[in-house]
C-alpha cells in the first residue's frame, strides 16, 4: 500500500499542475496496479504517464484508464510500447492516439502484443490530416476489437486495406462501411468472410460508390444462395467482375436473384457451371445464370450440361463474345432450337395444330380442343387451370406438360389426356338419364327417393337430380368421379391399346404423387384408397386391419367398371353403393387410434360383378364416441391432372342451355353453381359468374320485341353514321376525295332473315370501288422471298396446262392426222356410211373457260398477329393474318397467270348494312399489270364482315362474266359479323344463315363456292354454313400462302 502511496505522491503534483482532473484518474489507476509490478516498473509507468500528460492530458487519462486492463492481458513491458505508439500517433492526431489507447486492451485480448505495431500503423494510415480522416482512424481503432471477434488477422488486415482504399475516394463512405462492417461480418459464416472482403475490394476498385450498398445489401442477397455455396458464389461474382472490370453489385444482385429461384440442391452445380463459363466469357456467365430458371423449366438438370457445353463450344470456336452472351440470353435461333430439342416440356400452343387434329380424329368433327386456362378464363364454373377436363363440347388440356423428361413422353401424356376426355364424351359419361338401369345393376333411385320421402326436381339435369338424393354432394361427386373415371380409363385402354402402356406409366406417376393416407380423415382415406385402386395401384391401398374386409369389397367393386360394356348408369350405382359405406365412416384422423394399416389381400377378378346389397357394418372397430368427437369436415379429394375435374351435372346443364336457352332458369343455374364444389371453395361471386354465363351461353334470353329494338337501334346508329358520312362527303373540298367518292358504285342486295324465313329487300348497300394503289415493293419483295415456292407452284400449274393446250381431236381440219380416226374413217367409207372426215387434230389453246373470283376478308380481326412466342422459330414478328392474305394473293396470282384462268380479286369489309365496302383489286377481264401489283399492297384490315352482301356482289359479277365454270373462293379469318347482322352481338346465327343463303343462291346460278378459313373455330359454324358447300380450315395460318394454290388446283383441275 505504501509503495502505491509513494508512487502517487511522487507524480501527483506534476500531474495536478498539468490538469487538475488528472490526479484522481491517476490515483485510481495506481490503486488498481497489480501488486506483482516491481517498483522499477511502477516508476517507469508513472514517468510514462507524465510524459504523455505533457503532450496531452487526455492521452494520459486514457493511458491510466487502460493500464489495469492492459496489465491483465499483457506483461508490463508492453505498457511502454503502448506509450511509444501513442506518442507516435499523437503526431498525427492526439484524438486518434486516445482512441488507440482506449481500444488497445480489447485489441490485445484478441491478438498478442506483437500485432500492436502493425495495428497502429494501419490506423495511422487513415489519418491524412483532415478532421474526417482522424474520425475515421478513431472509428477504426474503436471498432477493431468487435471486428476481430469475427475476422482472422489476415481478414482484418484485408478489410482495413479495403476501407483505406475506399477512404481515398470518400471518407464518409469509408466510415459508413466500417461502421457497418462488424454487423455484416457477424452475420456471415466464417468461410464466407474472406470472399466477401475480396468482393468488397473489387467493388471499391471498380465502382467505389457502390460500396455502401454492397455492405448494406450484400449479406441479404447472399442469403438466397444455399449456405455452403455462398463463398463460391462470391468468388464467382468477383471472377466475373474482374474479367471485364464490370461493376460487381449489379452482377451480384442479378445472379443472386436468379439463383434464389432455383432449388437449393442445384446451387452448387450452377455456380460451378457458371464459373467454368466465366473463365471463357464472363458476361455470358451472368446471362447463363439469369436465364437458367427459364431453361430449367424446360430441360432437365442433366440436359443443362448439354446446354452449357454448346455455349462453351461457341466460345471456344471463337464466336463473338456478344454472340455467346446472346446465346445464353436465348436470343439466338440456335439457342432456341437447342432448347427445344433438349426440353422435355411440351407446350400446348406449340403442338396445338397436331393435337387438335388428334382430338378431332378421336372425338369426331365437332370436337374442339383448347388449353385449360381458356376455360378458367371463361369463368363458367371451372377454376383449375392446369388439369384436363371437358365442358361437353370442348376438351381442355393443360397449357403445358412437364411430367416426364422428354418431349415425346410428354406428348404422349397429352394424348392420354385427350383420349380420356374425349372418352368421357364418346363413352357417354354425360348421357346418364335419371333412374336409368345400368347394364349390370338396377337403378336404386326410386328406393332412395322413397327413403328420402321427397321427390327431386325434375327440371334439374339428371345428374343433378341424382346428386340431390345424397346427403353429401361432395362425397357422392367424388365417388362418382372416381368410379366413372375408372370406367372411362378402362374403355380407353380397350379402344386405344397403343396408349395403354403410357396410361400405365402415367398412372404410376400419378399414384406416386398421392397424399399420405394417414394424414387424412378416415372417410377421406377411404376415398383416397378407391382413387389409388382406380389408377391401377391397388397394392398401394392401406386400411386398418379390422376393417380390411370392407375396404377390399369396396375396391373390388371398381372391377365392374373394367367391363367394356358397363355403362354410366352402372357407375352411378357403384358410386351410390360406395357412398352408403363411406358416409357411415366418421371422418376422424385415424392416426389417433394407432391401428395397424395393412395392404389388401388378393382381390376378385377383373370384371366381376359386385354384390351391391346394402352393407353397413353393425359393429365398428373403433370407439364411436371417440370417433365422433374427433370428426373433421370432409375435404374433396384431389384428382390427378390427367383426369382433371369432372362436373357431369354442370355439363348436362350447359348442354341443355346450348340446345335451349330457356331450359334452365336463372335460379336453377345459380343453385347449380353454388353446388359446384370447387366454386364453393373458391368463393366466387355468383352474380358475376351468372352474368358471364348468361352472356357466354344463353346469349340472349330476350324475346323478339327486344331484338327488334336492337335492330332498330343499330339502324339508328347507322343512320346517324350515314349522316356523318354524307357530311364528310359534302365537306370534302379536296378534289381527290370527290373523285374517290364518285368512283363508288352502289348496288343493293337482299338479306336473308332465317327467323322470318324471308328476305329483307334491298337491305344491304354495297359500295364497289377500286382499291387504292400502294407501292410495288410488296409484290416484288414477296416474289423474291418466295421464289422457290413460286417456282414450284408455277410448275404444278403449268402441268395443268397441257389440258389448256390439249390436242383437239376429231376436227375436219387441223395440223395433224390422227391415225386411229383416219383408219376408222376409211373403214366407214368402205362400209358405205360416208361419215364426216373428222380425223384431223390440232394443238390449240382451248379456253379452259374458268373464271374465279377471290374474295378476301379485310375485317378488323385480320389485324391479329399470328406471332406466338411459344414457337421456336417465330415468324417475323408482327406478321398479321392480313399480311398472309396479301402474300397468298401474290402466290395465287402467279399460279393463275401460269394456268391462264380468268380471275378477279376483291376485298371486302365495311360497317353496317348501308356501307359494305367492296374493293376491286383486279377485275375478271382486267390484264394483270403493275397497277394490280400496287393495289395488293393496300390490302389492309378495315372493319366488320358482312359476308352475305359481299358474296352476293361478287357472285353477281361472276355471273355476268362469260365463262363455263365459275368459282368463288372466299378467304376469311372468322365468322361473319357486323353491326346489326343479328339480334345483338352474340347472335351469330343470323349472319351464318344469311351467308349460307348467299352461297346457296350462287350455287343455284352454277357458281361453285369454296370457303377457306384460318379460324380454328371454323368447323363450329362452317358445318352449319356449308352443309353442301366445300370448305377447308387452314389451321396453321402461316401455311395459307403455301396452301391456297394447292386448294385451287384441286378445285379447278380436271
Amino acid at each position: 500500500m505504501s509503495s502505491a502511496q509513494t508512487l502517487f505522491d511522487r507524480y501527483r503534483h506534476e500531474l495536478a499542475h498539468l490538469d487538475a482532473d488528472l490526479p484522481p484518474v491517476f490515483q485510481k489507476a495506481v490503486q488498481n496496479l497489480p501488486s506483482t509490478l516491481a517498483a522499477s516498473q511502477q516508476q517507469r509507468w508513472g514517468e510514462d504517464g507524465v510524459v504523455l500528460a505533457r503532450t496531452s492530458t487526455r492521452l494520459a487519462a486514457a493511458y491510466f484508464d487502460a493500464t489495469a486492463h492492459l496489465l491483465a492481458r499483457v506483461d508490463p513491458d508492453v505498457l511502454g510500447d503502448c506509450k511509444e505508439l501513442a506518442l507516435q500517433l499523437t503526431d498525427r492526431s492526439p484524438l486518434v492516439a486516445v482512441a488507440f489507447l482506449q481500444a488497445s486492451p480489447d485489441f490485445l485480448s484478441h491478438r498478442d502484443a506483437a500485432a500492436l505495431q502493425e495495428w497502429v500503423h494501419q490506423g495511422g494510415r487513415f489519418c491524412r490530416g483532415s478532421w474526417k480522416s482522424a474520425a475515421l482512424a478513431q472509428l477504426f481503432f474503436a471498432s477493431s476489437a468487435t471486428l476481430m471477434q469475427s475476422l482472422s488477422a489476415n481478414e482484418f488486415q484485408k478489410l482495413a486495406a479495403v476501407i483505406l482504399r475506399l477512404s481515398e475516394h470518400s471518407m464518409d463512405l469509408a466510415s459508413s462501411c466500417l461502421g457497418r462492417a462488424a454487423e455484416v461480418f457477424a452475420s456471415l459464416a466464417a468461410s464466407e468472410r474472406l470472399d466477401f472482403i475480396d468482393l468488397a475490394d473489387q467493388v471499391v476498385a471498380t465502382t467505389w460508390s457502390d460500396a455502401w450498398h454492397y455492405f448494406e445489401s450484400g449479406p441479404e442477397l447472399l442469403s438466397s444462395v444455399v449456405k455452403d455455396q455462398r463463398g463460391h458464389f462470391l468468388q464467382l461474382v468477383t471472377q466475373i467482375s474482374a474479367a471485364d472490370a464490370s461493376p460487381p453489385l449489379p452482377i451480384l444482385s442479378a445472379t443472386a436473384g436468379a439463383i434464389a429461384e432455383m432449388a437449393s440442391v442445384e446451387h452448387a452445380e450452377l455456380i460451378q457451371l457458371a464459373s467454368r463459363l466465366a473463365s471463357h466469357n464472363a458476361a455470358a456467365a451472368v446471362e447463363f445464370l439469369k436465364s437458367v430458371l427459364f431453361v430449367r423449366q424446360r430441360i432437365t438438370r442433366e440436359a443443362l450440361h448439354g446446354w452449357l457445353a454448346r455455349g462453351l463450344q461457341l466460345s471456344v470456336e471463337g464466336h463473338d463474345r456478344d454472340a455467346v452472351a446472346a446465346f445464353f440470353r436465348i436470343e439466338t435461333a440456335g439457342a432456341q432450337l437447342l432448347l427445344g430439342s433438349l426440353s422435355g416440356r411440351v407446350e400446348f400452343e406449340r403442338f396445338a395444330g397436331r393435337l387438335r387434329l388428334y382430338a378431332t380424329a378421336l372425338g369426331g368433327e365437332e370436337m374442339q380442343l383448347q388449353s385449360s386456362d381458356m376455360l378458367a378464363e371463361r369463368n363458367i364454373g371451372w377454376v383449375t387451370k392446369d388439369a384436363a377436363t371437358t365442358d361437353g363440347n370442348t376438351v381442355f388440356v393443360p397449357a403445358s406438360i412437364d411430367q416426364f423428361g422428354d418431349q415425346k413422353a410428354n406428348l404422349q401424356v397429352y394424348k392420354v389426356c385427350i383420349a380420356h376426355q374425349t372418352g368421357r364424351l364418346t363413352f357417354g359419361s354425360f348421357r346418364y338419364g335419371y333412374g336409368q338401369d345400368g347394364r349390370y345393376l338396377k337403378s336404386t333411385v326410386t328406393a332412395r327417393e322413397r327413403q328420402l320421402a321427397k321427390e327431386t326436381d325434375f327440371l334439374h339435369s339428371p345428374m343433378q337430380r341424382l346428386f340431390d338424393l345424397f346427403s353429401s354432394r361432395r362425397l357422392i361427386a367424388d365417388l362418382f368421379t372416381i368410379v366413372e373415371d375408372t370406367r372411362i380409363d378402362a374403355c380407353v385402354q380397350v379402344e386405344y391399346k397403343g396408349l395403354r402402356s403410357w396410361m400405365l406409366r402415367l398412372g404410376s406417376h400419378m399414384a406416386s404423387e398421392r397424399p399420405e393416407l394417414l394424414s387424412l380423415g378416415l372417410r377421406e382415406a377411404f376415398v383416397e384408397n378407391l382413387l389409388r385402386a382406380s389408377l391401377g395401384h391397388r397394392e398401394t391401398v392401406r386400411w386398418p386391419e379390422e376393417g380390411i374386409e370392407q375396404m377390399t369389397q369396396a375396391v373390388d367393386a371398381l372391377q365392374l367398371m373394367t367391363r367394356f360394356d358397363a355403362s354410366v348408369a352402372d357407375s352411378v350405382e357403384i358410386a351410390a353403393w360406395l357412398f352408403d359405406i363411406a358416409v357411415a365412416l366418421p371422418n376422424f384422423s385415424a392416426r389417433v387410434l394407432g391401428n395397424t394399416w395393412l395392404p389388401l389381400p388378393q382381390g376378385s377378378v377383373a370384371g366381376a360383378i359386385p354384390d351391391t346389397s346394402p352393407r353397413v357394418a353393425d359393429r365398428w372397430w373403433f370407439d364411436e364416441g371417440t370417433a365422433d368427437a374427433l370428426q373433421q369436415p370432409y375435404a374433396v379429394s384431389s384428382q390427378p391432372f390427367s383426369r382433371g375435374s369432372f362436373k357431369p351435372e354442370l355439363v348436362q346443364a350447359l348442354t341443355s342451355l346450348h340446345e335451349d336457352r330457356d331450359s334452365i332458369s336463372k335460379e336453377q343455374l345459380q343453385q347449380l353453381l353454388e353446388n359446384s364444389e370447387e366454386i364453393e371453395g373458391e368463393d366466387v361471386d355468383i352474380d358475376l359468374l351468372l352474368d358471364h354465363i348468361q352472356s357466354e351461353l344463353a346469349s340472349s334470353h330476350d324475346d323478339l320485341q327486344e331484338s327488334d329494338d336492337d335492330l332498330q337501334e343499330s339502324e339508328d346508329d347507322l343512320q346517324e353514321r350515314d349522316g356523318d358520312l354524307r357530311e364528310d362527303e359534302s365537306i370534302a373540298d379536296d378534289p381527290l376525295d370527290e373523285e374517290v367518292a364518285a368512283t363508288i358504285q352502289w348496288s343493293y342486295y337482299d338479306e336473308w332473315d332465317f327467323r322470318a324465313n324471308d328476305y329483307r329487300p334491298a337491305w344491304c348497300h354495297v359500295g364497289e370501288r377500286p382499291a387504292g394503289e400502294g407501292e410495288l415493293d410488296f409484290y416484288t419483295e414477296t416474289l423474291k422471298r418466295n421464289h422457290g415456292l413460286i417456282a414450284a407452284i408455277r410448275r404444278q400449274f403449268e402441268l395443268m396446262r397441257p389440258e389448256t393446250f390439249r390436242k383437239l381431236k376429231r376436227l375436219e381440219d387441223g395440223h395433224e392426222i390422227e391415225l386411229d380416226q383416219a383408219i376408222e374413217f376409211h373403214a366407214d367409207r368402205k362400209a358405205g356410211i360416208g361419215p364426216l372426215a373428222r380425223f384431223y387434230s390440232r394443238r390449240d389453246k382451248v379456253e379452259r373457260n374458268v373464271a374465279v373470283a377471290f374474295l378476301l376478308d379485310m375485317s378488323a380481326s385480320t389485324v391479329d398477329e399470328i406471332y406466338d412466342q411459344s414457337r421456336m422459330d417465330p415468324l417475323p414478328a408482327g406478321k398479321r393474318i392480313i399480311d398472309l392474305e396479301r402474300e397468298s394473293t401474290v402466290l395465287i396470282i402467279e399460279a393463275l397467270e401460269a394456268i391462264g384462268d380468268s380471275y378477279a380479286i376483291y376485298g371486302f369489309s365495311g360497317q353496317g348494312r348501308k356501307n359494305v365496302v367492296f374493293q376491286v383489286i383486279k377485275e375478271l377481264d382486267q390484264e394483270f399489270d403493275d397497277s394490280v401489283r400496287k393495289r395488293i399492297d393496300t390490302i389492309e384490315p378495315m372493319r366488320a364482315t358482312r359476308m352475305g352482301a359481299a358474296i352476293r356482289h361478287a357472285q353477281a359479277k361472276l355471273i355476268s362474266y362469260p365463262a363455263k365454270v365459275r368459282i368463288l373462293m372466299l378467304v376469311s379469318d372468322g365468322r361473319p359479323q357486323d353491326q346489326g347482322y343479328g339480334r345483338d352481338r352474340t347472335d351469330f346465327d343470323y349472319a351464318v344463315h344469311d351467308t349460307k343463303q348467299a352461297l346457296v343462291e350462287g350455287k343455284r346460278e352454277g357458281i361453285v363456292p369454296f370457303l377457306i378459313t384460318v379460324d380454328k373455330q371454323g368447323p363450329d359454324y362452317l358445318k352449319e354454313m356449308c352443309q353442301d358447300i366445300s370448305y377447308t380450315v387452314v389451321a396453321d395460318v402461316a401455311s395459307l400462302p403455301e396452301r391456297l394454290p394447292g386448294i385451287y388446283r384441286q378445285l379447278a383441275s380436271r
Partner: protein
Amino acid sequence: MKQAFKQLNAEDFRITEEPYYLPIADEVALFESAYKQQLPVLLKGPTGCGKTRFIEYMSWRLHRQSGNHEEEGVPLITVACHEDLTASDLVGRYLLEGDDTRWIDGPITRAVKVGAICYLDEIVEARKDTTVLIHPLADYRRMLPMEKRGELIEAADGFLLVLSFNPGYQSALKDLKHSTRQRFIAIEFDYPGRREETAIISAEADCHAEIAADLAKLGEKVRHLKAHGLAEGVSTRLLVYAGKLIADGISPRRACQTAIAQALTDDLEIKGTIEEVIDSIFEE
C-alpha cells in the same frame, strides 16, 4: 404355245362364284327392284366403298335367280370411262380386213344385245358428248342408236345401265349434266359402319377379327379428319390392304403407316396425326 393369260369376250364374262358382299342397307333390294323394272341405276359414293364389288355381287345374284335363263344369265360388262372415250369406243366401229370392212360391236352394243348389266365406271370422266349417247338407252325407249350403221337396237330384257360416280371430288369441272342424272335412280354408298367394316375387313383380308376391328376403328377415326385437310376419308379398300399386310406378318403399325397414312396424304401434319392415331390404336 399355251397362252399364259385367259382371254374372254366381254359378253362371256360372268361371275360364277359368289363375290363376297356384305349388304350395308337396303341396296340389294333396291337394285333388284330397279333391275326388275328396268330402271337405270346410278351408284354414288366415295372411292373404295364397295360400288364395284356390289355390282359384281348383284350380277352374280341376279344370274342365279334367273334360273330360267339359258346359260348366259346376266353377264356384266364394265367400261372404265376416261376423257378420250369416244362414241365409237362404246358403240362399235368398222375395221378394215383386207379390202373389206368388218363391223365390231362396242361394249354397250354387246350389253344391249345380250341383255347384260352395263357398268360405266367413273362416268364423270367421260366427255359430255359421249355421255349424251346413253340418253335414249336410259329412258323408257331403251334404244341404242347406231349412227354408223343407221340402225336402232332395242335392248334385250336383261339389259341395265349402271353408272358409278364419286361426288366427293371437289372439282367444279366434274359434274353430271342434269339431263343425264335425272335418268337414273341413285343409290348412295358410303363407308360402312364400324361393325360392318370389321366383318368386311376380316373376310377380305383374312386377318384376325381383333385386327379387323382395330382397322375399322382406325377407319372411323381417320374419316373424322375429312373436313380438316384430308380430301377423302380412308377407303375400305385401303383398310383391307392394311389387313392383308398384317395377315402376312407385317407389324400392324407399319402396315397402317404404309397402307393408310402414306397412301392417303403427303401433308406432314395430317400424316403425323394419322400415325399418332395408329399408334394409339395398335400396340407396339
